[in-house]
């Protein structure tokens, strides 16, 4: 796809027997968080949950997981959304539900801006339209204390191998509950070079707010109150900009919404059906 090989996986059939018919079920494409993580975490909760009633397509974005690593100058929201569009076109997926989580929401939002007619519904878990680092740093301080605040500031302002190590040490367990942190750190194939690169480049300039009004698809936003990487004030910017949106609030939930607030999965299933 656009010169790279993308890994995708599928769970649940699209056509299922129902009496004398094959009933067509919706297709949900899951765009993973990160930057630099992969699709695997979703196979432990929301993916199998939705596969009961929908066909779930997992994808590893370019540079991530089992997809080609490609090169840093293509690690940006423009090429990730192009890849997604190309892949779905190649395998004949028409008007899917696109589900983005965290960082994946940047890709999902950009996809829906560029190809508004090709999305039937959008589901966004803790979406931001831009990364307001001062807000994020402040939130890391409120939820994780001075050390987390300092490490977040250092990483966002001077992204490097050293600063990301400190960031992961001091901030990851603020983003997700400590009980899940080890598994979420160890199970994906991480590309930390991509995380550093994106934080140093596109994260500083990306602003998807102007195009939000072009998104036609009905959208469900899951808004967690305690995700320092995606602060409530930034989630509110997305909600304000979307033409057709409903919101579910999850007080106390962090970045790991599906683990922290499992009731969010039923809300998505109902919205997708």
């Amino acid at each position, binding site marked *: 796809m656009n010169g790279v*090989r993308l890994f995708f*996986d599928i*769970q*649940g059939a699209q056509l299922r027997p129902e009496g004398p018919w*094959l009933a067509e079920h919706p297709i949900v494409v899951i765009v993973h968080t990160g930057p630099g993580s992969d699709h*695997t975490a979703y196979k*432990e909760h929301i993916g199998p949950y939705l596969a009961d009633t929908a*066909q779930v397509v997992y994808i590893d974005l370019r540079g991530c997981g089992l997809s080609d690593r490609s090169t840093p100058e293509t690690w940006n929201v423009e090429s990730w959304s192009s890849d997604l569009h190309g892949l779905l076109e190649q395998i004949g997926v028409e008007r899917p539900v696109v589900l983005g989580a965290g960082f994946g929401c940047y890709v999902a939002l950009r996809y829906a801006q560029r190809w508004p007619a090709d999305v039937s519904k959008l589901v966004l878990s803790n979406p931001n339209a831009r990364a307001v680092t001062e807000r994020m740093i402040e939130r890391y301080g409120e939820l994780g204390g001075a050390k987390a605040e300092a490490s977040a500031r250092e990483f966002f302002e001077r992204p490097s191998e050293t600063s990301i190590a400190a960031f992961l040490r001091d901030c990851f367990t603020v983003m997700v509950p400590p009980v899940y942190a080890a598994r979420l750190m160890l199970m994906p194939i991480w590309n930390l070079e991509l995380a550093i690169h994106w934080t140093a480049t596109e994260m500083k300039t990306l602003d998807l707010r102007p195009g939000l009004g072009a998104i036609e698809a009905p959208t469900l936003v899951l808004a967690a109150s305690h995700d320092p990487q995606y602060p409530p004030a930034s989630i509110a910017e997305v909600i304000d900009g979307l033409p057709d949106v409903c919101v579910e609030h999850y007080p106390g939930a962090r970045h790991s919404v599906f683990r922290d607030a499992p009731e969010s999965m039923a809300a998505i299933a109902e919205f997708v059906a």
Partner: protein
Amino acid sequence: MKIAVGDVELFFDVEGPKVVPSEDEWVERPTVVLLHAGPGADHSLYKDLVGPRLASVAQVVYLDQRGDGRSSRSDAAHWNLDTWSDDLRGFLDALEIERPVLLGSAIGSLVALTFASRYPDRAAGLVLVSAVARYVHQRSVSEFDRLGGAHAGEVAARYFGDPTEATFADYMNVCLPLYTRRPLDPDVIARMRINPEGTVNWTRAEAAKLDLREAVGRITCPVLLFAGEDDPSFTLAGAEELADSLPAGLTTFRRIPAAGHGVFRDAPWALDETAEFIRVGSSVRPEGDDGALVGFS
């Protein structure tokens, strides 16, 4: 889902993920591609029983062959085993499915056999349900005669001797109900998108000259072959002849009493054995292994 392969678009569906989590790592499961009977039927035949069961051990890929179901119709000149097996090759290449197990029943088993003899390194194993190396119409006529009486034998003989829409209609009414011991679920029939032209064309054209006895000697992967003793269409005698033509050390032959066409409906245990074959038999073979399949003789 659909994907462009050569001059056609092929419909496919998928059930069960390829990569699944275990306690502390990600595990890759085998892929099994289901090749449907026909020609003129479609993948939906596998949706109620076979696919869901196998999805517990493998990633299941359903495929509508060219001419059938939701795939491009193409034309009668391209409804043949060479084209279907090349379509399959193109399909696997496009999705980068490297070495799947192929499960086929009836014509689907012939596509699997043709593919595995042309591209021996691209199949990890074959599961063949109701398969023969060639059609000997007299064998089939005798079985219809035995199972349904002289009239059934006559109707079959008329259709084989002169395949037309009219003789096919009689055959469907009189002979199809004799295919399985348990009656076919009418919902399963209703779910198919049928292309009767494809069936008649097959009987008229390729079925008459089909002979895979030599080609199947080139197959290098393990084969699990099921034959129903009461299958009037793909007869036991035909399956025995196929088993004799397949490479000896690789083939497991199961003849099933009181089972008809597409044995799984009459003998559900065969599906369990299939699941185990896919789980064990398609695992990557160690270097230097002579190819004998663990667990089957």
